[in-house]
């Protein structure tokens, strides 16, 4: 178990390095010479050259990469071109709404998708099964912002049950927090839910035809016991895998959802940064999200051993 965990953690290091290399190259090949911009219009080529040397821009690519990597490790992501604030500071300010949205979405979609998939597998071939599967196909065929606008139009504009836009911090009370965040979470979670419900159904169909399930049935275990205790644990490995892989859709979707519902989170920061071509901010956000994604999938790999102690890679 420990050896497996250490091996998995070591294996993520090259992946993170490649991500970092890509993100760094982004700024390296970005159009516009930072030295020329700082020097201004009146500068002579010699001035530009001096500024370039003082910024360290004249050094080789790899030297600059490891320099940059070292400062990132220490928590320095550079300075925004537009606001002149440290990128790490800007990210800190925006992290709460995004984190809240993700946690709520994850909770909602997991608590809906897994029972949906289990019931569909149990009632295999009936209209319940078909209804769940159709919902799933619709779920990942509809872009997040389409669902977002549809929900906002029906439940916020027409029915007036929820606010149309905005975000309230959890420190101002749980109820206003949830009231603001429930529509974005549902919009964002639908794709994720569809993915998980599909894989849950498929794996459960496999597990339910196993001998130990028949044995459990024969010794008189109730339907619920068979489904949620005997079978679900054995179906867990593919399900958590999809939960990990699908996290990418959640991150991409958050960027869009925050624009639709005017949530001042990291997604909005990304969109604003793109429109202003604020490369250090884009860099910081892409690096942060990718590292979160890698860590989530590392966590998934480590969870495997909890669900299936036989796994020893």
């Amino acid at each position: 178990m420990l050896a497996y965990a250490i091996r998995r953690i070591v294996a993520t290091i090259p992946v993170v390095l490649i991500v970092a290399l890509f993100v760094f190259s982004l700024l390296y090949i970005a159009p516009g010479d930072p030295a020329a911009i700082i020097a201004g219009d009146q500068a002579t080529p010699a001035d530009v050259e001096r500024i370039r040397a003082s910024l360290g821009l004249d050094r080789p690519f790899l030297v600059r990469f490891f320099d940059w990597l070292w400062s990132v490790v220490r928590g320095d992501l550079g300075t925004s071109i537009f606001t002149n604030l440290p990128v790490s500071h800007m990210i800190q300010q925006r992290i709460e709404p995004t984190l809240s949205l993700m946690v709520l979405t994850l909770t909602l979609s997991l608590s809906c998708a897994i029972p949906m998939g289990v019931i569909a597998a149990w009632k295999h071939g009936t209209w319940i099964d078909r209804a769940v599967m159709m919902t799933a196909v619709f779920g990942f065929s509809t872009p997040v912002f389409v669902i977002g606008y549809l929900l906002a139009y029906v439940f916020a504009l027409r029915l007036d049950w929820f606010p149309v836009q905005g975000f309230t911090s959890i420190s101002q009370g749980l109820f206003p927090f949830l009231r603001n965040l429930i529509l974005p979470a549902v919009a964002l979670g639908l794709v994720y839910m569809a993915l998980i419900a599909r894989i849950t159904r498929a794996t459960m169909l496999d597990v339910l035809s196993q001998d130990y399930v028949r044995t459990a049935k024969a010794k008189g275990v109730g339907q619920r016991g068979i489904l949620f205790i005997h079978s679900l644990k054995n179906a867990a490995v593919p399900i958590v895998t999809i939960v990990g892989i699908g996290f990418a859709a959640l991150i991409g979707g958050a960027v869009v959802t925050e624009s639709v519902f005017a949530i001042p989170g990291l997604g909005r920061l990304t969109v604003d940064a793109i429109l202003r071509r604020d490369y250090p901010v884009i860099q910081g956000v892409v690096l942060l999200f990718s590292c979160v994604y890698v860590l989530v999938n590392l966590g998934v790999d480590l969870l495997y051993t909890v669900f299936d102690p036989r796994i020893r890679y």
Partner: protein
Amino acid sequence: MSTTVQAGDFTAAPTLPDVLPTPKERGKIGGFIYRHPTIVVGGTLVTLMILIAIFAPFLGTKDPTSLAPARRTREPSALYWFGTDMLGRDVYSRVLYGARVSLLVGFSVATCAGIIGTTLGLIAGFTRAFDAVVMRVMDGLMSIPPILLAIALMALTRASVKNVIIAISVAEFPRVCRLVRGVVLSLREQPYVEAAIASGTRVPVIIWKHILPNTLAPLMVQATFICASAMITEATLSFIGAGTPPIVPSWGNIMAEGRALWQVKPYIVFFPAIFLSITVLSVNLLGDGLRDALDPRLAKRL
């Protein structure tokens, strides 16, 4: 004590009704529709969208780019079927032209990502030296969420349909590469490939004649799903302002322009949204159906 049997001792067994129903006679086409309903539904809708894209200039009622501030934000009517947007452009005509952008991006990305991914996957699967390096790079690329990767690439370049296709292809091809490599690794162990190697067939011939044909089925299914996800990514990029240039009437752009007014004029956002969702849904249905038809083991499960 004669045991002769007389004719009257026997009663003829009653003719039983056929328990098994006679197999229903279906023509070739009827049988196909019955067995693969998702291919038929998905395929029909995709064909319809392709026709709309091709004949957009004839189906459209107005020039999609002509501005007319005097008649802006009209509600849908007999004259403007889907209404007009903030600049007075006909939303119906723009949505028809939007089908062109969406399908072009979807198909191009599926083709580009398919070709690049297959080539790299074949190389990685066949040469040990490349395998470790290529797959680590793929792992790295795959750990950047696809939309973020496309956003980052679009931030570097000018907004154009070509650049959108390149950016989304880069974000999608590692998945193809990994799929093809997996197939190659399992095919390499097959007796007929070993036989080909033993009989001295050159590697390019083995790849072309024995490996490639066997990767086509999973590849086609994957390409369909990439096409669907590329169309969503394109719309998303355009929607947040990092996609096709605003002058191009893509569904994402129409929605982005309708955003400011959506609380009062929701139709500007909803018409392109409906078209986008139907197109993606039909491509996904087609992919589901293809997978079921090409991989019968999975057919009853997913």
